[in-house]
């Protein structure tokens, strides 16, 4: 039953998820035009061979709309994960190396952001920026760093006590030198995994906020908007409008998780020999 050894299977999972995400991204970007076309001769067709996801009440191809929406979500996810990860890395290291005052300020900041339910925080930021695509992107990218920052901080605190850092300190190396030269390389695997595992959260939150009606207009079919439109037509029995886009969204997020887990298995020295 088992195909290949564990490393090969992990690599296969990684490759598959990467390919899948790339295909969604590229296909979505290519179908911008098809997603917009309305054709009243093909209104409300349930899923069939020609339109695997069916069409909506304006005769738009749901497959194209879903892919377009997903590719947008993935881009927003990548952007916000990158921003959040950078913030988390800097704050996490600063908080663990720059002494007690910096640590308590940053811990306070982390608690502050985690104190407000995430969706509510996104709503607040979106309102503050006047509701729009910009508000959603900025909101999502600025609010995902606390958990990763906490993780990095804990790691650095542990690292700080390890012999080779202690020795470097006794040798008179500066704080920034130690942080950059000795700690950073050690943190990079964890950091990359944390970065990839930020995507699912970012995408889920982005779709949630757009679902609630903040941000993107109906002209730009983000996945949240596709689903919130579907909700209005749910009672009339058009189940395919909600089912397939949602399924594909779930699948995309699962792929990100698989990618993160595979990377973790590959990079974490503890699991190399398993």
């Amino acid at each position, binding site marked *: 039953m088992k195909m290949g050894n564990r490393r090969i299977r992990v690599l296969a999972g990684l490759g598959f998820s990467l390919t899948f995400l790339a295909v969604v991204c590229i296909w979505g970007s290519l179908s911008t035009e098809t997603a917009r076309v309305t054709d009243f001769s093909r209104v409300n067709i349930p899923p069939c061979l020609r339109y695997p996801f069916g069409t909506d009440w304006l005769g738009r191809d749901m497959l194209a709309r879903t892919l377009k929406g997903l590719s947008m979500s993935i881009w927003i996810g990548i952007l916000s994960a990158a921003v959040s990860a950078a913030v988390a890395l800097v704050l996490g290291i600063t908080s663990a190396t720059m002494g007690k005052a910096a640590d308590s300020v940053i811990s306070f900041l982390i608690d502050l952001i*985690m*104190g407000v*339910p*995430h969706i509510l925080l996104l709503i607040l930021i979106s309102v503050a920026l006047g509701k729009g695509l910009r508000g959603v992107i900025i909101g999502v990218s600025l609010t995902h760093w606390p958990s990763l920052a906490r993780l990095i901080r804990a790691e650095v605190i542990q690292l700080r006590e390890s012999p080779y850092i202690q020795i470097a300190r006794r040798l008179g190396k500066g704080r920034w030198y130690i942080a950059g030269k000795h700690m950073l390389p050690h943190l990079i695997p964890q950091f990359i995994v944390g970065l990839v595992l930020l995507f699912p959260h970012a995408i889920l939150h982005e779709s949630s906020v757009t679902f609630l*009606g903040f941000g993107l207009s109906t002209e730009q079919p983000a996945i949240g908007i596709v689903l919130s439109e579907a909700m209005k037509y749910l009672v009339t029995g058009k189940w395919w409008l909600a089912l397939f886009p949602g399924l594909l969204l*779930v699948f995309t997020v699962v792929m990100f*998780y698989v990618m993160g887990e595979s990377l973790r298995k590959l990079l974490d020295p503890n699991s190399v020999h398993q």
Partner: protein
Amino acid sequence: MNRRWPVFLLKNLVRMTLLVICISIVTFGLMKASPVDPLQANVGQAALGSMSQEQREKLEEYWGVNTSPVEQYLSWAGDFIRGDMGTSLLYRQPVTRVIAVKLSNSLFLMVMAWILSGILGFALGALAGMNQGRLVDKCIKGYCLVISSTPAFWLALLLLMVFAVWLGWFPIGLSVPIGVEASGVTLADRIYHAVLPALTLSITGISNIALHTREKMIEVMGSDYILFARMRGEKGLRLLRRYALRGVLLPAVTLHFASISEIFGGSVLVEQVFSYPGLGQAAVAAGLGSDMPLLMAITIVSALFVFGGNLAANILYGVIDPRIRRGGTAE
């Protein structure tokens, strides 16, 4: 008891108060930065357009539009502490009353979901942890992965589609039957309307606690004292109840208290789908309708809940785990 214990409590309380104050400042700042014109939002565009310049200036003065943000914040915060949270623009009622009504609806839902997801999540996690690597474990792990990748609102849509539209078992929305007077609503009605939303919230809430419990369980199962108990022939439920349970229960309970924020966030989405008139739906309505007083009040109330949960988690840790109590907060 220990002398450090009250200090620990006090420290936590002070920190919590500081955090709430900071959140109120940040919230206020965000609302202030919003491009929505306060005059226009309060009076309405048509009314504002028909006003003379003089009337406008009077209004501006009345609402203190031109005072400094710090003064505005102080006067708002002062009123807030005294219990006057302002008037909601959408509901045309004092914010306090709106929140009281919505919160009671939401709490009903959230408490139900919180308890249900806690119990189920713990049971599943313990089951998976005790059978690590077997089929049960794999199924539960897979379930958790899929659920944590599923947006709560889509799950709500699915349940709504299946149970309310197709099967017609449950109502499509709202928290009480339509066309019945408030006095005629029974508890059964309320429960009946809350089942689907609460179920959605519980399903999504399970994965976090189950995965955490599983990790802990695996850790505990690998320990020496469990090995010893097994050697003596203990197994199954008895092994769980007598040996493993205590070590796993504590972190699970604390985690569950700390996860109130997530249930709160989930309820925003779920309430929106089921048009359940709770706090989350009010928050969305306030956000979309630029109802600043209501939005700010909801933010602070929810932050209070989150911090309350965290505080409870910290205290529980101290009460149950003697190591932490003795170790104090030095770490």
